C-alpha cells in the first residue's frame, strides 16, 4: 500500500535519514521505532509531506507521492497526528474535526455529511460530540484523542500516528494502543505507528521497522526484534547485546 524506497533527507550537510526503504501492507499496523534522533520523525514527515526528501521515492497505492505538499498527501488518503497535539484553539472540538472532514476529503462531501463524519470520529475516540465543547482545559490524553479524531475525519486509508504515547501514564498508554487496534478493526485503516517506547507498541503491531542513524536495521516480526542483537544494541547498548548473545 505504502512503499518507501531509498529515502534520503539531508539538512544542509547532515543526513537525517540516509537510506530508508520499507513497505506497508494493506490492513497492517506497522511500528516504526528507533531511539531519539534515529530519523523516524524525519521519515514520517517526508511521507506526510512536511519535508521534501533529498532522494528516494514514496508511493501510495501505486501513485508517486514524493515531495507532494501536506494537503495533497491528506487528499491522497494519508492522515496524520502530531507528536505534540496541535488543536486549533479558536475552534470548538467539533469544528476542529469537521474542518478535517471537509478539507481532508477535498470538499467532496456535503456539509451535513461532514458534520456527521466529525461526530462519528469523535464518538470513535470517545470524545464529546456536543457543539459547545471547546479545547480549553483538555488534558494530554484528550488532546491526543482529538488529534486522532481529526485525522480520522478526513477518512484516510492510511493513518500515520506520531508518538501517540508521549506524556501519557501507563494505563492511558494501554488505552491508546487499544484504540489504534480498534480503529483498524472498525475502520479497516492501515496504521503506521511511530514511537520510541517499545513496550506497549509490541503488543498491537504486526511488524516493526527499526531505524538507527537514519537506516533500517530491522524489519520484521515484533518478537524477533526483541531478540535481535542489532536492535538490542541501539536500545540498551553494546554490552547488553553481547550478554544477550552469550545467553544459551
Amino acid at each position, binding site marked *: 500500500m505504502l512503499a518507501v524506497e531509498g529515502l534520503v533527507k539531508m539538512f544542509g550537510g547532515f543526513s537525517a535519514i540516509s537510506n530508508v526503504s520499507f513497505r506497508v501492507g494493506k490492513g497492517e499496523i506497522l511500528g516504526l521505532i528507533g531511539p531519539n534522533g534515529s530519523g523516524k520523525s524525519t521519515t514520517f514527515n517526508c511521507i506526510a509531506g512536511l519535508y521534501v526528501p533529498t532522494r528516494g521515492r514514496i508511493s501510495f497505492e501505486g501513485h508517486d507521492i514524493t515531495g507532494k505538499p501536506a494537503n495533497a498527501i491528506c487528499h491522497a488518503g494519508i492522515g*496524520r497526528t502530531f507528536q505534540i497535539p*496541535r488543536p486549533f484553539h479558536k475552534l470548538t472540538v467539533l469544528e476542529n474535526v469537521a*474542518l478535517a472532514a471537509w478539507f481532508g476529503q477535498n470538499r467532496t462531501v456535503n456539509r451535513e455529511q461532514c458534520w456527521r463524519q466529525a461526530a462519528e470520529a469523535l464518538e470513535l475516540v470517545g470524545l464529546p460530540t456536543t457543539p459547545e465543547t471547546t479545547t480549553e482545559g483538555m488534558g494530554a490524553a484528550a488532546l491526543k484523542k482529538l488529534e486522532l479524531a481529526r*485525522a480520522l475525519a478526513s477518512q484516510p486509508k492510511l493513518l500515520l500516528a506520531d508518538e501517540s504515547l508521549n506524556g501519557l501514564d501507563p494505563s492511558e498508554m494501554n488505552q491508546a494502543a487499544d484504540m489504534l487496534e480498534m480503529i483498524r478493526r472498525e475502520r479497516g485503516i492501515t496504521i503506521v505507528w511511530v514511537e520510541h517506547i517499545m513496550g506497549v507498541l509490541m503488543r498491537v503491531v504486526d511488524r516493526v521497522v527499526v531505524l538507527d542513524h537514519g537506516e533500517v536495521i530491522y524489519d520484521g516480526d515484533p518478537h524477533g526484534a526483541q531478540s535481535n542483537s542489532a536492535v538490542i544494541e541501539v536500545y540498551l547498548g553494546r554490552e547488553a547485546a553481547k550478554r544477550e548473545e552469550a545467553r544459551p
Partner: protein
Amino acid sequence: MKLNPAYAVGLAALVALPFAIRAVFPGSEKYYLHIVIQMLLWAQIYTGWALMGRFGLTSLGHGAFTGIGAYVTVMLWNFAGLTPLIGIPVAIVVAVALALLIGYPSFLQRIRGHYFALLTLAMVEFVRLCIVGLRDFTGGSLGTQPARYGDGISFYAVQFEADRMIAYFVALAVWLAGILVWVRVDRSMDRFALEALGQDEEAAAAVGINVTREKLKITALSAAMCAFGGAIFAQYQMYIGPDTIAGFGVSLNIVFGAVAGGIGVMLGPTIGALFTQLLSEGLRMFFQGSVTLNAMFGSRVLSLDTLIYGVLLVLFIIHMPRGIVGTAMEYWRKHKRGS
C-alpha cells in the same frame, strides 16, 4: 438565511435615519448626512480589511486597493469615457490582480506577520508613487476630480453626490453588501480553515487545507471589497487624492479604525468607523471652535486634533486589543455567566 429581529430593527432604524436627520436638523441636514455617509463608506472598507485582518493577515497596504478602486475608475471615466458601471469592475479586477501578485509569492514563501505587513507597506507606497508619477493624468499629490456628468446625479456616471439622500442610500447599500460578504465568510467552512491556518499552518495543511489557496482567496476578496469601497468613496467625494484615498495614511486609518472597533466580530469594523469618524470630527470641531485655545496657540491649534486623535487610538489599541465590540461582548458574556 434567518434575520435576527435585533438586526431587522437596526436596519429599519438605518433606513429611517436620514429622514430623522432631515426632521431634526433641517438647516444642517447636509452636514450630518455627510458624516453618516462617510461612516458607512469607511465601515465597508474597514470590514473588507478585517475580513483578512482577523485571521492574522495584517496588511498595511489596503490603501493601495482603495486607491486603485478610486483612481482606475476615475481615470477610465475621465480619459476613456468609460462609465464607472464598467470602470468599477475593471478597477476591482486590477486590485485583485495586484493582491494576487503580492499574495501568491509571499504566501508560497511563508512570509508572515511583520514581514507580510512590511511587504504590503511597500506595495501601498509603490501605488502612491505611481499615482504621483502619472501626475499628467492623476493630478499628482494634489489629486483630481471625476468629470461631472450633467447635474451630478446620474446612474450612468455613478454620480450621486449632489443629492445627499440618494448618496446615503448608496452608502447604506454598499455597507450592507460588505456586511453580507462578512456573514457569508463567517458561516463558511473557509472561515474554519482560516482560523486554523492563522494559528498553525502545518497542522492546517495536515488536515488537507491548501494554505496558500485559502489565504489567496480571502486576500482577493478583501482587496476587491476595498477597491469597491474606494471607488464609491471617490464617486461620492467627487475628488481623489493620494492622501484621502490612496496612501499609507489611508492604510493606517483602515487598520486603526478596524482594530479599534474589533476585527473578530461582524459589526466591529463598523463601530470602529463610527468611533473614529466621530472622534476625529468631534476633536476637529472642539479645537477649531475653542476660543481659549485659539488665543493661546493661534492657528497651530488646527493640527492638535490629529495629534490627540493619534494618541487616543494608541491608548485604545493597547488597552482594548479586542476592540470596542469585542470587549463589550466579552464583558456581556462574563456578566451573563456570572448572574
